[in-house]
């Protein structure tokens, strides 16, 4: 087994996880903020909808996504009409799938973190001349750090490990949609246990090496934060 067999899917996986997590944070921040503060009657419905991607098995979710995103499907047609990229068996498609599948893991911790912020300090910031956006970035985000970290870790790790959705709408195209988790899965399926152990070990070690400093960094600021 040569290095590129690990390296290519690894790079792809990291890219997918990074893009997905970044997009999810961007998308979920306003959503979570709204959910944390609204008094709308529709809030429980929206919250339930956010949680729904979780309850379907990933490959089934992938199947429905496939139906929607295929060139013949509603979203696929829309994308084609707008001159967008092909959404199945392509990287953009994987991103869409992962976005949907990891949504709850990012949205919910964010919402919790935002909801537990006291309004006192934001009010103080407002009287000091901070606009709502300014308040969000200068007060709410730093104070919600713990929740944002959790959202990021859960979103990133879940995208790393996900393969049901990815396999279905991605199709395991080397270098394009064949992520590390698919490579591991396939190794097991093809009885190449040695390779599977190696790949799984790599992912675990890498994740561990990534997570420990992140958590350590968070911890070192904790004293100041409390």
């Amino acid at each position, binding site marked *: 087994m040569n290095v590129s067999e690990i390296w290519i899917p690894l790079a792809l996986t990291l890219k997918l996880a990074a893009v997905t997590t970044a997009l999810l944070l961007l998308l979920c921040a306003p959503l979570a903020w709204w959910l944390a503060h609204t008094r709308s009657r529709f809030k429980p419905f929206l919250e339930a909808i956010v949680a729904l991607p979780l309850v379907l098995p990933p490959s089934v979710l992938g199947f429905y996504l496939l139906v929607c995103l295929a060139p013949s499907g509603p979203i696929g047609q829309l994308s084609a009409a707008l001159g967008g990229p092909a959404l199945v068996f392509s990287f953009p498609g994987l991103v869409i799938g992962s976005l949907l599948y990891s949504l709850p893991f990012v949205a919910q911790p964010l919402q919790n973190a935002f909801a537990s912020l006291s309004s*006192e*300090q934001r*009010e103080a*910031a*407002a009287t*000091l001349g901070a*606009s709502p956006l300014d308040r969000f970035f*200068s007060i709410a985000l730093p104070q919600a750090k713990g929740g944002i970290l959790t959202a990021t870790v859960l979103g990133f790790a879940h995208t790393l490990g996900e393969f049901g959705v990815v396999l279905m709408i991605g199709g395991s195209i080397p270098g394009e949609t064949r992520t590390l988790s698919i490579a591991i899965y396939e190794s097991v399926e093809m009885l190449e246990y040695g390779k599977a152990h190696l790949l799984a070990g790599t992912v675990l070690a890498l994740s561990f090496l990534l997570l420990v400093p992140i958590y350590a960094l968070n911890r070192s600021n904790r004293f100041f*934060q*409390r």
Partner: protein
Amino acid sequence: MKISFDLQLRKGDFYLAAKADLPADSVTAIVGHSGAGKSTLLRCLAGLEKTALGSIQVGEEAWLKEGHSLAPHFRRIGYVFQHAALFHHLSVAQNLNYARKRSLDGELFPLEEIAQVTRIQHLLERNPQSLSGGERQRVAIARAIASNPQILFLDEPLSAVDETARSQLLDELERIFRSFQIPALYVTHNLVEAARLSSHALRLENGRITSNAVTRQVLTPTQIADGSDPFSIVEIRSRRDLPEEGLAELDTAIGPLLVSAANLPRELPKCILIRGRDVGLSLSLLPETSILNQISATVRSVHEHSASQVLVQLSCQGGTLYALVTRRSAQRLLLAPQRPVYALVKSVTLQAEA
């Protein structure tokens, strides 16, 4: 400049309905009992109560008008909250800088000066959550000033501050208000503090404004039926310092008064407080005593005050002075309207202090 507002707000059982015109170029005190709605009124004016109805006009700007509310960050206020509300994720210095960065045009007081005035220089690198109660409140005051506000809202800013610091901070607040011309709304339950700092006052009771006038009038003893200490607020016309004795001679509405100069702000204060209980009465002048101020006066009326005490309203050269004396003395001195007396005021009691 002027602030006019007409506000309505419901919060559970509590209903605020406050309408007033205030001069917005000086300090206005807001007094009233716990739960009267003082904090709520400030919050409405600051735009923090989203459901407040009515109107707020500050100078030329409409802060609240039917259907339109100016966002809080556009109302150039400096707000010192009853609970300091410091930013926990920032150090003290960063808290000040936060305000400074967002302050608009206009001449700025240097941060060092602000820190010095509020005595927080040694705390600048600290985390707000490690501060003591009094330290926190001083940082909150400093932060509000750092934002270079057009108007300061202060909600009991000195309640956690010890006596020495309080009296010094009061001095400094007074100086800041005056020399930097920052008008302020000042909520306090300390009437003496109110009298000392403000020229105008509002009294709130159960969500309504029950008086709105110059401080002297709002805090007038006969207006205040709540058992708190009655006092007179006497206008000062001019001042003559006697440096060798550390005294100042004030020309006031009730005649000349000798006061310890150290107890006066550097600027000429507009008025001086004289507590009713600090005023004694005598039928004759008393040369051989330590009582320097002996003011010729006429009894205007005598009010019941408590089981043992009466409040005597005196006329002195057209000014009004209140004396709180025992019923026994009143009988002994035959106090009654028109009776000429001397009001005895120890000069040392004349400190404009909380």
